[in-house]
């Protein structure tokens, strides 16, 4: 049984891993240079509690289940999931009514621990909130994570369990015979396939059409963000702060990141479906973030910004996930339209998709006995070990004693290990180790990381890029 998974975002990576629990060939195709560099890279990074989704939606079916599964995922894949809780805050009685409605919805969706908090209790938990708040819906199970790390970890674990991972390969055609999946053709290879999982994120409609299926149109909804310096802004809020949602979505939030920074955003702008690659920030967007975030937390000092970025999420006309076997092409299975709460739902979706595959195609998939669910993260030393333990490690491994990223105290060993695990770009090293993710944003270490990347891989410095093909950093010599 040959199963081709297209995409290594949160959905493709977790499904690939899930499939490696069974006796089948798993072939993963990703057009980018690393896992999770599309939609999964730039979003609010929230594992939602699950009160947001109307009980009759597909979203509601997976969200609170997915939230629950993150505890196990975090343990097995050694990723950080911090259950810091969330507050939806209300400023007036109309908004309080919305909180009550969300509360009831949450109970229906089996969200544990929900409470409506009155002003005093809320402000004792979040003293920097606008004192005009009157109440909040508190969800203790809401969490934050690093979505790209989940993707990388799941792909590493899938690889360990036998999946074939092919980066920098773009699907250019899908061959069918008698409306049945036969082959997936990329710009580099051809792969025989019995089943194709379409987890191509923003491009899932393109993949569907390629296979001759009718596609649900997927259009990009862009969200812009501002990230504040963890060293100076980290204590602004302790949990995820949402405004009361409106028809336009969940609104602009203020939340801590796993790395202790503070994230503000997102905006929410629907783009033409052709603008799927757009990741540009705008003055209007940034101004709106500042204005809205300051309404929630007035003491935000925007001068503490370390970076701005934008991400796109795949939106569908009915604002829900698109999961299921194609009715037209046998063997093509769509897992698309992963708008919010796609990240949260992903672990539950991955399990359910494999069940659905077995049922839809009457597969006789046997569980492997030797599946190893454990993946270990790249060890980080400074701040995580006692000085004596760290000393012992350096004695055996001198590279662990050389700090390359001064801001985040990332050692040369961590960078070399990221490269061993497949990092080939500055961004890949950054997302895997947090090197150059700190307050100087690579000012002191980009040149060193370039040098280490080149030394370890043999790729000339001139050919190393930040992320996409043309994003080179240096080109040629000043003097021969």
């Amino acid at each position, binding site marked *: 049984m040959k199963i081709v998974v297209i995409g290594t975002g949160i959905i493709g990576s977790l499904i690939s891993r899930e499939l490696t629990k069974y006796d089948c060939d798993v072939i993963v195709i990703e057009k980018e240079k690393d896992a999770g560099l599309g939609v999964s890279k730039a979003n609010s990074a929230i594992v939602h509690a699950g009160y947001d989704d109307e009980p009759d939606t597909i979203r509601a079916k997976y969200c609170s289940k997915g939230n629950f599964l993150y505890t196990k995922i975090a343990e097995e894949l050694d990723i950080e999931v911090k259950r810091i809780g969330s507050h939806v805050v209300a400023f007036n009685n109309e908004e309080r009514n919305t909180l009550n409605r969300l509360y009831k919805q949450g109970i229906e969706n089996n969200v544990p621990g929900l409470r409506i908090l009155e002003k005093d209790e809320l402000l004792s938990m979040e003293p920097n909130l606008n004192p005009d708040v009157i109440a909040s819906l508190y969800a203790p199970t809401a969490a934050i994570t690093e979505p790209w790390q989940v993707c990388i970890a799941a792909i590493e674990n899938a690889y360990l369990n036998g999946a074939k991972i092919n980066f920098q390969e773009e699907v250019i055609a899908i061959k069918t015979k008698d409306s049945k999946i036969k082959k997936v053709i990329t710009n580099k290879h051809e792969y025989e396939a019995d089943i194709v999982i379409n987890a191509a994120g923003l491009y899932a409609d393109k993949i569907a059409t390629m296979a001759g299926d009718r596609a649900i149109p997927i259009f990009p909804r862009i969200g812009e963000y*501002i*990230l504040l310096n963890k*060293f*100076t802004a980290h204590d602004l809020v302790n949990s995820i702060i949402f405004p009361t949602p409106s028809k336009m979505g969940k609104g602009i939030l203020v939340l801590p990141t796993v790395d202790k920074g503070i994230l503000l955003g997102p905006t929410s702008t629907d783009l033409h479906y052709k603008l799927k690659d757009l*990741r*540009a*920030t*705008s*003055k209007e*967007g*940034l101004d709106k973030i500042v204005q809205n975030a300051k309404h929630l937390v007035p003491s935000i000092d*925007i*001068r503490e*910004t*370390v*970076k*701005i*970025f*934008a991400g796109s999420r795949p939106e569908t006309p009915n604002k829900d996930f698109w999961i299921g076997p194609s009715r037209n092409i046998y063997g093509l299975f769509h897992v698309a339209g992963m708008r919010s709460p796609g990240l949260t739902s992903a672990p539950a979706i991955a399990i359910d998709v494999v069940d659905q595959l077995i049922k839809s195609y009457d597969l006789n998939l046997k569980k492997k006995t030797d599946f190893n669910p454990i993946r270990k993260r790249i060890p980080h030393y*400074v701040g995580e070990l006692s*000085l*004596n333990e*760290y*000393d012992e490690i*350096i*004695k055996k491994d*001198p*590279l662990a*004693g*050389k*700090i390359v990223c*001064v*801001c985040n*105290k990332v*050692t040369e060993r961590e960078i070399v290990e990221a490269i061993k695990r497949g990092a080939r770009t500055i961004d890949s090293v950054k997302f895997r180790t947090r090197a150059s993710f700190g*307050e*100087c*944003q*690579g*000012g*002191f270490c*980009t*040149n060193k990381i370039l040098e280490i990347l080149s030394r370890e891989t043999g790729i000339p*410095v*001139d050919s190393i*890029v*930040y*992320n*996409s*093909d*043309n*994003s*080179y*950093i*240096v*080109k*040629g*010599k*000043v*003097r021969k």
Partner: protein
Amino acid sequence: MNKISCDLLIIGGGASGLGAALKAAKEGVNVILVERLNIAGGILNQCIHNGFGLHYFKKELTGPEYAANLINLTKDLPIKFLFEHFLLSIDKKSKTVYFASENGIVEIKCEALVYSAGARERPFGSLLIPGDRVSGIYTAGVAQKFINIENRIIGKRAIILGSGDIGLIMARRLTLEGVEVVAVCERMPYPGGLSRNINQCLKDFGIPLLLSTTVTEVRGEGRLSEVITSELDENYNIIEGSQRSWSVDTLVLSVGLVPSTTPMMGYVDIDLRTRGIIVDSTMNTSVPWIFSSGNCVIIYDLVDYVTKEGEIAGTYAVEYIKQKKEKKKIPIKKGIGVGIINCNAWVEQTDLNLYLRSIKPIEKGRLIVKSGNSIIFEGKEQAFIPSEMVHKTIKAEQIEKLGNIDNIVVEIV
């Protein structure tokens, strides 16, 4: 764990740390100087242009020459250099500082510490300039490091944002290395760098300086391909219709330095606005045994000042080691017209070295140092601009003759 001890520990082997080491070692205490790179001299090593040393060495030198001269002066003195050692933590009670190195953790017990870790550059992300996420945007120091140290070309056609000295110097450097520099933009209505650099780096090469102009968007696919600039009105709002498009593959930023003080957070008091370590006239921080000097205190115009301040830190760190006597401190307050100032307090029996910048350009003003109604110093009438730092040394006797005072106010009127 490798355990060593010394009288004076210095963190940072740049222009200031070396100054502190020199002075302290001459006083006979033994010094350990810890540096995270594999060479002393700090940022001087990448500043291959000249213009350094006129005050300290009384001759004009390049950055590497200035560094080499300083390092030469440390020869035969009781200074032990530890390279590629990285600060981990400080135990304030036992005056012990921990470093990581390739040989393991090094624990250094000292009597006094001088922290002189310099500054970092403000990154592009902090400017909130919207647009595509592209490569080809470099802070000036990073560009300088690539070109001058690593012999690498960063682009073909560049625009520079910020007319601070390093921006001006990079405009010249890039031009000399065959990179076309289309303009230098400055959001303020006046230049940020020294006038001599405007002449020598821009005018001599015909590079336009666009005042009240900033970068308002960056565009490109992968690599930068277009920069949009806009003119600003007197309230720094964008003037609609003033947008200009520049076809460039490189944007170099000279938008300011921030004292590198994050590793000291929680150990000593830091000015949360400037991020500088707060020191008194002996370069002593809020902790009696910890001193600090150089760009991690305030961003100086001249490296000569940085070394001089290091010497002061070294001198008083030695005095602390030998006497351990607490002295009376008189707070220094920023009066009208002053943007930033160092130091924060005057310590009795010491000379007061004031470094300050005016808050805005002042055509005719006087520097006044006073306490209550008593004038300690009144300068001649002169012009002030924020980009040119004012330095004034006031002798201890001048302050002491006022008798008991509660505070000192510095103002430009």
